[in-house]
């Protein structure tokens, strides 16, 4: 009796160190950077069929971002439309982290009610859920908004599916003439609509920080002039029509100024135009070289621009008030057409290499340059407002197309409809 009790005691003492020990901790440091698996269940439809397949738009948005891996439709084991219909255990087997369900029902012929719910499959928890009532014409835009919400909920970052792209399309008429159009599309390139058409070339569209205005260069008057156009009203003003070249407009972060390239003094130089007063101030003074394609740093005090003052085009930085410029790019013989991420961490530019031109990104802190594209005919890079993707123009089958690449170079996507010839893209800011 006592012996067994003693044995039990000694066993207890033996085991005590185990008990006293800190909990076993397993370190996880790796992890994959794979796209997040998500199940997007086609939304239920009640009443009149909706003119847009909202869940399909969302599915494409999420897939196009590269951050999500929607399950193939064939893998979906059931089609629940609200929580009561979900058996989470089943969805867990598919290893899908998120589950999106929803339904669209027609209120009347023109109005639809849309509701969605996003669930955490493993915790059987709703992460976000909303209900909307929109006209049929607003369904697509609503789908992008829902994509933004899902993106933000699952990644913690701002979604850019509701932003727009501005670009220039060129159409060859049967009469052998070229028609230029300034177009604005959804962020996925879909739903393009022309905001300006011209027989003369249109170049360098630039979004105002509030996304309400576009500035661009139009040759409609026989020479390069800079215009500012309001998106809602369509009203447009020529803001720079000086003698010589008027080009490469770029909005200051506060939306009050434009940086421009003017050659009114004989040589292309960088100027800053105060829109309200029309006051113009010259930034660069280098009559031997071309200074152009200025963009504002997020701090609104400095400009990056392209200059061949060193013999070959390189990116330089200069104070918006003028003064001495400093060289920013040192890698490669050709660096031009810079754009800056909204967070100020990265600069993207066209990087020439062996006679080919690629989109590259440079870490402004370390100076490290990474070439992101492979096509070799890439131009006009423009950062997405979430600083995560870069929109650029490239060529495919002799025609200009739009493409996007993630800032880490991992995710590539083709934007817009095939068949059109597009160039000079600019990613809009997030709609306020």
């Amino acid at each position, binding site marked *: 009796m006592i012996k067994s009790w003693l044995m039990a005691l000694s066993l207890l003492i*033996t085991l005590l*160190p*185990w008990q006293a020990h800190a*909990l*076993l*901790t*397993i*370190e*996880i*440091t*790796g*992890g*994959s*950077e*794979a*796209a*997040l*698996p998500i199940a997007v269940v086609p939304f239920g439809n009640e009443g009149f069929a909706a003119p847009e397949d909202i869940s399909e738009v969302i599915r494409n948005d999420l897939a196009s971002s590269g*951050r999500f891996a929607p399950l193939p439709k064939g893998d979906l084991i059931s089609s629940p439309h609200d929580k009561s219909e979900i058996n989470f255990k089943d969805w*867990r087997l598919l*290893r899908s*982290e998120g589950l999106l369900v929803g339904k669209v029902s027609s209120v009347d012929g023109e109005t639809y009610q849309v509701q969605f719910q996003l669930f*955490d499959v*493993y*915790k059987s928890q709703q992460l976000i859920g909303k209900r909307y009532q929109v006209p049929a014409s607003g369904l697509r835009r609503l789908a992008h908004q829902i994509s933004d919400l899902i993106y933000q909920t*699952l*990644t*913690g*970052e701002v979604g850019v599916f509701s932003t727009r792209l501005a670009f220039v399309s060129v159409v060859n008429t049967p009469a052998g003439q070229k028609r230029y159009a300034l177009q604005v599309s959804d962020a996925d390139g879909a739903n393009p609509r022309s905001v300006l058409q011209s027989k003369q070339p249109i170049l360098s569209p630039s979004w105002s920080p509030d996304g309400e205005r576009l500035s661009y260069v139009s040759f409609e008057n026989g020479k390069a002039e800079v215009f500012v156009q309001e998106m809602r009203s369509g009203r447009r003003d020529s803001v720079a029509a000086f003698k010589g070249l008027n080009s490469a407009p770029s909005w200051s972060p506060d939306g009050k100024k434009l940086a421009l390239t003017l050659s009114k003094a004989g040589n292309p130089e960088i100027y800053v135009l105060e829109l309200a007063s029309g006051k113009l101030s010259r930034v660069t003074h280098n009559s031997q070289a071309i200074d152009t394609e200025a963009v504002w740093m997020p701090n609104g005090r400095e400009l990056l621009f392209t200059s061949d003052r060193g013999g070959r085009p390189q990116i330089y930085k200069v104070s918006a008030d003028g003064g001495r410029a400093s060289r920013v790019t040192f890698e490669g013989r050709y660096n031009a057409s810079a754009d800056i991420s909204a967070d100020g961490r990265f600069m993207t530019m066209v990087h020439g290499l062996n006679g080919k031109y690629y989109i590259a990104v440079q870490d402004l802190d370390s100076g490290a340059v990474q070439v992101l594209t492979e096509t070799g005919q890439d131009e006009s890079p423009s950062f997405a407002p979430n600083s*995560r993707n870069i929109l650029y123009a490239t060529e495919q089958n002799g025609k200009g197309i739009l493409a996007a690449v993630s800032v880490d170079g991992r995710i590539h996507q083709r934007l817009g409809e095939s068949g059109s010839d597009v160039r000079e893209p600019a990613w809009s800011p997030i709609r306020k």
Partner: protein
Amino acid sequence: MNKSLIENIIAGSYALILHIGLISLFVMGMESKSEPIAVLPQVDIVKATAISEDSVLAEMVRQQEHEQKQLRAEQDRQEKVEQKLLETQQELARKEREYLEQQEQAKIQQQQRELVAKQEQDKIQQLEQQRKVEEERKQQAEVDRKVAEQRKQKAEQERLVEEERKQQVAQERRVAEEKKRLAEADRQAEERRKSEAEQAAKLAEEQKRKAEAERLAAEKRQVEEERKAQIAEADRLLQESLANEQREQEVRRVGGVVQQYMSIISQRVTRYWIKPANATKGLQAILRVSLLPGGDVKQVTIVKSSSNAIFDRSAESAVYKAAPFSLPTDPKAMAKFRDFQFSFKPE
């Protein structure tokens, strides 16, 4: 002394002797009266010293008695001599008286006057002579007395010396005896003391021996106990080390199994963890996970949030997606995975 006195007396003229005798009788009668007085103290002295309990002293008394006897014998003799002398004197006086009576009778008349004158003168002369004689006698007596005295003194002195010597001897003997006695006593005392000391020493020795023996015994006992304790301790240590070794082996074994499964689980979770793109370095989420016996997740709690909800959720999802975990069959090793933690910390 007495002899010279007698000779002196014989040598004197009859007349003179008569006168002297008369005077002597007178004087001696006076003197004889004082004689015993002079002797008595001697006896007293002897008697005074005769007090002794000792046999020696008895002997002394005997001697003294003997001396006294002798003295008495001497006195008797002297008295006889004196008696004889007196008798002789009386005879002489009688003859003289006869002669004188014859002569005197004849002459008495004739000489009566002359005698009277002459007697007067003679008487003066005689007186003078008598005085002189008396003086001389006195002197002689004095001398004699002195001599006697001296003799007596000498004898006394000698006696005293002897006495003293004897006393001294006795004293010495006594002293010696006392000394001896004392020495004996001392010896005895010493012996006793010695004996006692010996006894005490013996006792002390015995006690010491005993104490030593006890000490040795105690020491031995202690040594024995220590030895036993050491053996017990060594045994215990051996047992303990064996137990420890077993335990350590067990711990190592279990630890090895645990490590192996930690690695398996880590790989599995890593494979399923889709790190958020904005999972910047420095983010860390600690998740506490309790598993069901089959390896399914019972519960996941975020113990330490990365303060990035997306990051936290990605970690949670990774754990859920990785489940069920394969767990060791060893119960001890398995126990470690009943409740444990994941630390998600991108590098």
